């Protein structure tokens, strides 16, 4: 049995909840992992130590962790992490770091793993139009897609070691620019409501935003909407050439369901489709389909949700 190592996912210095899912994946590979926390805070280290199924915790402290810099993070984390199968989150930075770590160690990187069955790992290919099942022939770095492994619960408390380990940063952040759109990112959201070209005009996305606010959801869009309307930024695009999402609930409004859109959202736990065209392909993939115009359906949806959620 290989040793396993988890690289904890942090967001602005705080522990990201997906870390408990990474520990679960490492356990599925057969061992209680060493969890490395890059640029840790005391609270993050304590939170990891509390997780069930953790072997030990290494809190990696260094100046390079103040902003994300791939090269220095990889160097510092590599020094702290023992050999074995390394598990990262399949987030933007997690995948980037996974690639660097694997290259540093001259081993394979396997991204976006969604299932582990014995020694077989499954990852989507062609944005989920097919699955690839692989077996590792040695150490590797793998990234785990959020929302696919059950989070571990609370344990007895693991030992925490602090390591001072920094490296020269190769990139310098000069300025943080506030996002024009302060809404929740589709890649982060547990509920997404997306609009397509069926919304007729980008101003009508306001109706989706109101429902998103009621649900605590992110607002997404189809490629057709992003390509047609300048007001809809590419950061909202869900699909094979946008973001691949895996929320608990995905509500598609005025989206016909092109193959490349389906590829980006088909693994959502529940899919609701609202479209006036009963023949739209999206209905074949929806758990709940409503054949209706958005003008008729959205006001009812909004008032029902507000009555329910307050």
């Amino acid at each position, binding site marked *: 049995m290989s040793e396993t190592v988890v690289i904890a996912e942090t967001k602005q210095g705080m522990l990201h909840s997906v870390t408990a899912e990474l520990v679960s994946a490492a356990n599925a590979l057969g061992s209680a992992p060493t969890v490395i926390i890059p640029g840790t805070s005391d609270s993050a280290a304590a939170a990891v130590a509390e997780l069930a199924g953790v072997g030990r915790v290494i809190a990696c402290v260094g100046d390079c962790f103040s902003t994300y810099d791939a*090269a220095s993070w990889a160097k510092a984390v590599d020094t702290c992490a023992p050999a074995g199968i390394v598990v990262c989150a399949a987030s933007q930075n997690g995948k980037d770091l996974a690639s660097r770590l694997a290259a540093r160690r001259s081993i394979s990187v396997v991204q976006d793993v969604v299932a582990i069955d014995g020694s077989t790992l499954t990852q989507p290919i062609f944005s989920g139009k097919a*699955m690839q099942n692989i077996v590792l022939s040695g150490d590797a770095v793998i990234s785990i897609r959020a929302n696919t492994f059950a989070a571990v619960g609370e344990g007895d408390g693991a030992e925490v070691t602090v390591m001072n380990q920094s490296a020269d940063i190769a990139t310098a952040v000069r300025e943080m620019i506030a996002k024009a759109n302060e809404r929740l990112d589709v890649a982060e959201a547990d509920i997404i409501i997306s609009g397509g070209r069926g919304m007729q005009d980008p101003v009508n996305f306001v109706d989706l935003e109101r429902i998103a606010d009621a649900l605590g959801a992110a607002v997404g869009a189809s490629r057709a909407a992003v390509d047609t309307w300048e007001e809809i930024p590419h950061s909202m695009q869900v699909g094979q050439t946008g973001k691949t999402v895996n929320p608990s609930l995905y509500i598609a409004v005025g989206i016909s369901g092109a193959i490349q859109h389906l590829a980006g959202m088909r693994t959502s736990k529940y899919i609701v489709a609202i479209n006036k065209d009963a023949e739209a392909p999206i209905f074949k993939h929806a758990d709940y389909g409503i054949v209706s115009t958005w003008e008729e359906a959205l006001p009812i949806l909004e008032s029902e949700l507000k009555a329910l959620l307050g």
Partner: protein
Amino acid sequence: MMPNIAVLVKRVPDTNAQILVSGDRVDLSNVKWVMSPYDEYALEAAMMHKEAQGGVVTAITLGAPECDKVLKDAKAIGVDRIIRVWDDSWSELDSNQTQMALTSAVKEISAEVVYCGKSAADTGAGSTGPGVAERLDWASASNIIGLEFEDSGIEVIVPAASGNARTGISLPAVVSCDKGFCKPRKPNVKGIMMAKRAQVEVLAAEIPASGINIVSHTPPPQKAPGQTFDGATNVPAVVAALRNDANVI
């Protein structure tokens, strides 16, 4: 300094293609092949870099002879050299092998900056840019959504947790490109004619053994068929089902 600029491009099935599984592998015999969509932004970035600072742009791909087409497409856009890395004994390369092969080509042309797409449309992995950078011991920036050229390097904009980070990078560096900061140019007739006559340089490379065995490809899990309701009057029933049956709101 006139930079040596490399751009990595990959031949992939069109993103509108249906992907079928036949036996234990995907059957790609009937799909339309294209340059991976994000590579078009990388190619545009490389051309912009040359226009700003001069230099030579080399497009590099990894693959069998049928991959010459994406190199010719890059040539039609205006790159100077086109290189394909390949050995007929290679098949189903893993990330370690792919990155080693591409890294040796980048070294061969003494590039100072490498542009690539943020991920390829087939694997969706996004491992190549940062992986090649690590092997070269270079800086890297991934998923860039802004790009400016400076005397001593480049300035990029990358998405971060708390906003977008305007970030300075000294060369050499690998830059993986998202959509949105440029509009890829189309080839003109002269470019297409030049591309027809262009010679693809073929390079060999030493690569390690694969670290993975691909056991099988399988179709994605199919969901149980859902329910479809006719008319907006059914919205309350769907909301109730999401609350009571699905437990997602």
